[in-house]
C-alpha cells in the first residue's frame, strides 16, 4: 500500500525524544489524576450516600456537573478560569492535573458508591452489633471488601484517563498529543505522527489492562 512506502520515518526520528518526554508526562498526569481523583471521589461518594441534604445535594450536583459536561471544556475552564485566577498566571500542568482529577472524581465517586453498596448489609449489621461505630464498620469491614470488587472499574477509569489526558494538549501541556500535533504542524504531515501516537497510547492502555488482569488474579 502506498501509505507504507511514503511513510516518513524521519519525522518520528526527529521528534522521538519529545514523544518520549510527552509520554512520560501523559503517564504522570494520568497517575496524578487517578490518585487525586480517587481521594476526592471517596469523599464525594460518602457525601452522596449521606442522608443529610446538605451533603447529598452538593455532591450529587458535582457528579452531574463533571459527568455531564465535556472534559475539553472543563480543561479550558480550569486552565483559564480557575488556575490562572488563583495563581495570577497560567500553569498548564497544574491545570491539567486539577481538571483530570476533578473529572475523575465524579466517576470514581460512582465506582465507590456502587462498590460499597454492593456489600451485603448484613456485614455492616454484624459489625455494628459487635459495638463498632459506622466509621469502624466502613473502615474494617465494608471498604476492604468493596475495594477488591472495584478494582476492575478503577483500572478501567485509569485507562480512560490515559486517553483523556490527550485533551490537555489544548492548553499546551507538553504531553504526547501536544508533541504529536507539533510534529504534524511542522511537517504538514498527519499520518506519521498520529499513527505513532496511536501506537504509543495503545501500548500504554494495553499494558495497563494486562496489569489489571494480573492484579485481579492476585487478589
Amino acid at each position, binding site marked *: 500500500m*502506498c*501509505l507504507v512506502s*511514503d511513510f516518513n520515518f524521519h519525522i518520528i526520528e526527529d521528534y522521538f*525524544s*519529545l514523544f518520549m518526554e510527552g509520554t512520560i508526562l501523559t503517564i504522570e498526569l494520568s497517575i496524578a489524576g487517578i490518585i487525586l481523583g480517587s481521594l476526592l471521589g471517596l469523599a464525594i461518594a460518602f457525601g452522596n450516600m449521606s442522608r443529610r441534604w446538605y451533603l447529598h445535594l452538593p455532591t450529587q450536583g458535582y457528579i452531574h456537573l463533571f459527568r455531564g459536561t465535556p472534559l475539553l471544556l472543563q480543561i479550558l475552564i480550569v486552565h*483559564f478560569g480557575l488556575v*490562572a485566577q488563583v495563581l*495570577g*498566571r*497560567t*500553569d*498548564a500542568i497544574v491545570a491539567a492535573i486539577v481538571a483530570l482529577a476533578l473529572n475523575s472524581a465524579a466517576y470514581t465517586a460512582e465506582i465507590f458508591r456502587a462498590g460499597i453498596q454492593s456489600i451485603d448489609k448484613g456485614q455492616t449489621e454484624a459489625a455494628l452489633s459487635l459495638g463498632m461505630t459506622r466509621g469502624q464498620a466502613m473502615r474494617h469491614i465494608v471498604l476492604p471488601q468493596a475495594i477488591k470488587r472495584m478494582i476492575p472499574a478503577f483500572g478501567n477509569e485509569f485507562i480512560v484517563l490515559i486517553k483523556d489526558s490527550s485533551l490537555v494538549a*489544548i*492548553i*499546551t501541556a*507538553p504531553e504526547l498529543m*501536544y508533541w504529536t*500535533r*507539533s510534529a*504534524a*504542524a*511542522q*511537517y*504538514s*504531515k*498527519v499520518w506519521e505522527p498520529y499513527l505513532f501516537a496511536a501506537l504509543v497510547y495503545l501500548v500504554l492502555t494495553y499494558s495497563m489492562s494486562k496489569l489489571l488482569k494480573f492484579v485481579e488474579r492476585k487478589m
Partner: protein
Amino acid sequence: MAMIVSACGKKEDNNASNASGGEDKVYRFATDAQYPPMESMDKDKIVGFDVDFLDAVMQEAGLKYELKNVAWEALLTSVQQGTEFDGGISAMSITDERKETYDFSPAYFESTNMILIKEGSTIANALDLKDKKVAVQIGTTADTLMSDIMGKGSKDLKRFESNTLAIMELDNNGVDAVVADIAVVQEYLRNNPNAKVKGILDRDNFESEYYGIAFPKGSELRAKLEPAVKKVLESDKYKEIYAKWIGGEPDLTGVLNQK
C-alpha cells in the same frame, strides 16, 4: 476527456460523467474559519478576506463553488488528498515545505508576523523573545519562525489550537508575547481598544509571507484559476476587499513579484 490523476491516497476516480467540464460542477473549498480577519464564523456564516477574495476569483472564472469550515489539520490532510475538497483557502503561506505537498495559486496576499505584548513589556524585537514565553497558533508561520528562534522542543513556546486561545494565554500571564499574523493582531487591537496590549513589527526577523490557495498536487483547478487570480489582484475589487477586512491600501509589489 477525463484525465485520471492517480496519487497515493486518492480514492475517487474521475469517471466519464465529469467530462462535461466545469460549468455545472460545484468546486469544494475548505477553510479553517478561526482566523479573523482572513476567515471566521459570524454565527453560521463564514466571513473574511479569504471568503470575499475566493468569491471574486470564482466569479471571474465563472465557476460554481462551495466553501466549508474545517479544522486546520483536517484541512491539511483533505486538501492534500483532494477527495473531499478541491482546494483550500485559509491564510496559507506558500513555503517550500508546503510546496512539496500542495500546488499553490499565485500569491494573493502579503503578510508578516507581528508581536503582541502587554503594555510595559521591554520586548523590542523577535530576538528578545528567545528567553521568554511565547504563544502561537500551531502550524502557522509564526509557529515555524518561533520554533527556529526558540527551538522546536522548547517548553516556553506554547502552540495553541487558535490565536484566540494564544491571546487568552497572554491575557492570563501565561506567556510574555503572542506572535501572529499582522492581520490577526491588527484585528485584535481594533476590537479591544481597552486591552493593555500593543503590537510591534520586526521586519528584520520576520520575513514577509505570501498567501496562496492550496490545491492537491497535479490539480486541474489550479491551472483554471491562475488567470482569474491574476485578474482579481489587479482589480479594484481587491482594493475594496482589503480595505474592508485589513484596512488601508494594499501594497502589491511583493505579491506580484512572487514566483
